[in-house]
């Protein structure tokens, strides 16, 4: 059987990670390549690099980061943030990323999903979804609405309907972030995660809210997620990936234990 994946997410701005990371032995490493290598050796099953650079010059720096990461780690990694066109996708994939994720750009122009899937294969195209809880309505029957621009802009789109549409357009995977849970460390949004995961046939990566190993256990079981994105919980060394995996394994979740 497939193992559940533990995926650290690194935010990168102008070629540097934004969260100084406190490792036990090594304080505040800001280089995404070094951090990628660290998590690779720690047992990460995949790594997400999220580019929050605003400028165009910064984007070229990111491509260089991607190339150096690709020479360093031999597990899949994806790159998201600011992917707006087929050309953006091509650059990132050619530089060595396994997958690209599109978020706001796909809401504005859903065809970018199908064009990306046709050009590079569905397995390369991850749909990033930022979702917030709302009162169910005729327009948003699931009670979960898509938001974009880092949660600042409502779209009026029902998150479940959007997930199904994106799957039909050729998205190969969904990275599902709950705006309500993000940054709280109070646990993943289990209801949302299970709702999306049970209604699409592509894998769902749960994101937002991990504060304990219990949270990760719950989203991979009750939440029916295929993978859990982790950020602060590993960056601040609350738990190492090894500790997370040992605990999940002990509780009967199949995870990759040798690397």
């Amino acid at each position: 059987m497939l193992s559940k994946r533990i995926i650290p997410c690194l935010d990168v701005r102008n070629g540097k990670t934004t969260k100084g990371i406190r490792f036990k032995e090594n304080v505040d490493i800001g280089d995404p390549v070094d951090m990628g290598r660290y998590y690779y050796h720690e047992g990460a099953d995949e790594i997400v690099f999220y580019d929050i650079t605003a400028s165009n010059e910064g984007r070229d720096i990111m491509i260089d980061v991607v190339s150096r990461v690709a020479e360093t780690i031999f597990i899949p990694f994806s790159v998201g943030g600011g992917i707006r066109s087929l050309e953006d996708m091509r650059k990132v994939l050619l530089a060595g990323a396994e997958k690209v994720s599109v978020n706001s750009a796909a809401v504005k122009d859903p065809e970018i999903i199908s064009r990306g899937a046709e050009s590079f294969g569905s397995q390369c195209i991850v749909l990033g979804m930022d979702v917030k809880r709302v009162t169910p309505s005729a327009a948003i029957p699931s009670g979960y609405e898509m938001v974009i621009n880092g949660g600042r802009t409502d779209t009026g789109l029902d998150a479940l309907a959007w997930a199904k549409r994106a799957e039909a357009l050729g998205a190969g995977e969904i990275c599902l972030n709950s705006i309500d849970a993000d940054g709280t460390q109070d646990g993943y949004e289990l209801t949302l995660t299970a709702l999306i995961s049970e209604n699409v046939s592509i894998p769902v990566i749960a994101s937002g809210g991990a504060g304990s190993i219990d949270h990760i256990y719950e989203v991979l079981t009750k939440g029916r997620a295929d993978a859990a994105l982790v950020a602060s919980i590993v960056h601040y060394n609350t738990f190492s990936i090894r500790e997370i995996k040992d605990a999940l394994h002990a509780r009967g979740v199949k995870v990759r234990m040798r690397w």
Partner: protein
Amino acid sequence: MIAIIDYKAGNLRSVERALRGLGFACRVTHNRDEILTADRVVFPGVGAAGRAMADLRDLGLDRVLSQVLEEGKPFLGICLGAQIILERSEEDHAACLGLMAGEARSFPVPLTSPDHGRLKIPHMGWNGVTHVRKHPVMKGIGSEDEFYFVHAYFPAPASEDHVIGTTDYGIRFPSVIGRRNLIAVQFHPEKSGRPGLNLLKTFCEWDGNHAE
């Protein structure tokens, strides 16, 4: 020199980077002479069988690959490269290279398991390999080692004798197959961390002999 066969099928640079990282000289090429003079051949691939076969034929590589195999050079198929070495694929109903008897099949739908309910297709992520036959390239690979898979079709050799390893995902499917100097893996060793790199290394050191 190791030739990595270039036929526009996906990202070949990850294979190249992994082999270079291990210290092996290699070249991504579709040049017939370069392929025929190489010591060994890696045949990767991502994408659809029909398109891949059309591209291979356009480049004249279908016959070149048969020749490589006949000459006894070590030959490693990866992912789509483990499927289109067979005679045909259910994907696109494509006629394939026929380097081994058998066909690439799709997973049955719906795919379910007693413990996990409905399973998603494609099979994407980390999974193990159960060894059913010894093979020099698989030495050093343990039963707990996992590999990275992304696929909706799998290789089904006509002869059980050609199945070296299997993987469980709703069904038990062949994930490592081989015959004489040919070995092929459904997963991506270049994306599978240390066990994958070990496999690439043992392939690069293999003389191509394998008692069946």
